[in-house]
């Protein structure tokens, strides 16, 4: 479904990502792990179109997407979350979910001003989808709060819900468990697995929480200092000498 081939990203003299390759099949959770500063988020930024990679190819469903503008990539069905939660803070929770469904603004400008039946129907559909996902992540009661006033764990869940209302095929989560307590992490674990099982979404995950990664990943890619270090199933990674060295240092 997604294939990254020999991706490199250079900032001036710094080669942040060097020849990284990875692939994601349908119905799969793939993790990217590595020490801080290894270039994981840079890979994400290239994949989601925030950076134009220096070289390499990114194929999504067979189409090259590297260097395309970010909003086009997201319209193809590749949507991401951020390491630091990025919500529309002064808008309400439900408005956050409505905005995410407004990709084609110009087509309904006139019909919206006139409130035509087809426009109403579309609005109602967006509302229904928003309310479904709010219920799914347990935020329905908070629908009319300002998003910025939610607790941190709730904001994390809202961000994922906001991605899901766009009906993505591939969801990219950048450290979704950062700042969550163990109970919240367990909920998140279940949520991610259910996204894959019930909604048929593939997931790419950057995460430091090893229990989460080892639990839910189908495959894991390890990056160290911008270079790919290893890839394989959780068991293979757990027993890989290079990975242990990179994480724990050499004796």
């Amino acid at each position, binding site marked *: 479904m997604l294939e990254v081939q020999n991706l490199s990203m250079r900032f001036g003299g710094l080669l942040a990502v060097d020849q990284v390759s990875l692939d994601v099949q349908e119905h799969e959770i793939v993790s990217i792990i590595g020490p801080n500063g290894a270039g994981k988020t840079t890979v994400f930024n290239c994949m989601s179109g925030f950076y134009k990679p220096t070289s390499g190819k990114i194929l999504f469903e067979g189409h090259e997407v590297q260097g395309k503008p970010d*909003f086009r990539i997201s319209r193809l069905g590749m949507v*991401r979350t951020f390491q630091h939660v*990025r*919500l*529309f803070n002064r808008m309400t929770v439900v*408005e956050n979910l409505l905005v*995410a469904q407004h990709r084609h603004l110009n087509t309904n400008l006139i019909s919206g001003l006139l409130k035509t039946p087809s426009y109403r129907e579309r609005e109602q559909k967006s509302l229904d989808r928003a309310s479904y996902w709010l219920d799914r992540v347990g935020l329905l009661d908070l629908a009319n709060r300002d998003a910025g006033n939610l607790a941190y764990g709730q904001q994390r869940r809202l961000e994922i819900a906001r991605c899901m209302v766009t009906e993505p095929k591939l969801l990219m989560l950048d450290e979704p468990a950062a700042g969550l307590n163990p109970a919240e992490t367990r909920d998140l674990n279940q949520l991610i697995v259910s996204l894959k099982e019930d909604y048929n979404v593939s997931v790419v995950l950057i995460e430091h929480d090893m229990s989460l990664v080892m639990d839910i990943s189908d495959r894991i890619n390890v990056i160290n200092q911008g270079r790919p270090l290893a890839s394989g199933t959780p068991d293979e990674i757990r027993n890989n000498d290079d990975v242990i060295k990179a994480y724990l240092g050499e004796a």
Partner: protein
Amino acid sequence: MAAHNLKHALFCAIVTLIVAYPILGFNLVSSGTDIILEGATTQTVISVLLAAVVVFLFQLFRDNIMALLGKAPALNPLANRQPMEQSKRLKLESTILTLIIIGALFWPFFVSRGSVDLATLVLIYIMLALGLNVVVGLAGLLDLGYVAFYAVGAYTFALLSQYYGVSFWFALPIGALLAALFGLVLGFPVLRLRGDYLAIVTLGFGEIIRILLNNMTSLTGGPNGIGGIPDPTLFGMEFGRRVKEEGNTSFHETFGIAYSSEHKIIFLYLIALVLAVFTALVIRRLMRMPVGRAWEALREDEIAARSLGLSRTSVKLSAFTIGAFFAGFAGTVFASKQGFISPESFVFLESAIVLAIVVLGGMGSQLGVILAAIAVTILPELAREFSEYRMLIFGAAMVLMMVWRPQGLMPMRRIHIELEKQE
């Protein structure tokens, strides 16, 4: 702490002296062909010294005074009440608004000509502020050159009527659309800019338009401006004493009433009222539509908005274009009201005042912006007795507002949406 306060207070008092003494103390008096510098009278010196002492004392006991003032809201019985339920509030709001509009329709028939004229100006500023509210309040794009679009609207009408004899009603949509086109044109180069950089570029754009109007003498008459802009007509009826254009009839003859110059003023006021209501309704609708939410999303977090598939280009351009469109509206009405326009009406101060209205009213809040437009336009008129201290009072009022109510007169309220649980 006390020592620090004392130092700070002394410093403030000295600054007051340095600033106040030359401005208030020295007078330039002309005697014959010469100009003589006169020193301050004792009275002025005493009042300047008194002012310095007041500043000194205020700064010295600033913390205590501010603490006292902080308790002041507790005296306000409305301060801690529960917010009204949304359905109730909306009903109350729409009732009040309908009453105000009905009142505004009949009001001009009972008051003086000057008040109606002023009210027309207020309505023009309301249109401008509502339009700028889209750009600054909703989309979060700081536009300091908004007056340019106002000028485009006004000059479109003036030029069309001068060269092609186009009437107000034809020029109104053309002026607004042309202003919108200029908004679009400005939008493109500033797509990537935000914050301070955007402010500077829009400021430059506003000046470019003004200077162009000033220097294209052959077309616009330069600083001499364009006069003789026709008044609007009502279904071909003119409001002048005599009919200027062939084929038209005059209003007072058709209805068999005595000619009165007030008819024209009231008619213009009613046009401005209808257009202002139209502006408010359209923008209110837009705010609750996808495009309005997209503006706000872009203001809140551009990166997140893009990651969800919103195109920065179309969101920003739509905000600029729609804001400019309503400025064009206001400009056309202004040209018709004045009958004469020159580049002097479109200086940076106008942009600043409209921006002040938006900020004072509460970014994004329509009702707040309308109230602020009324206050900002009428207050200087009421304070006319203070003549040269008018702007000083205006400035002081702004500073106080920003200190005590930075969110504006009536901050924007979010609409609650009832959701049904989905299975």
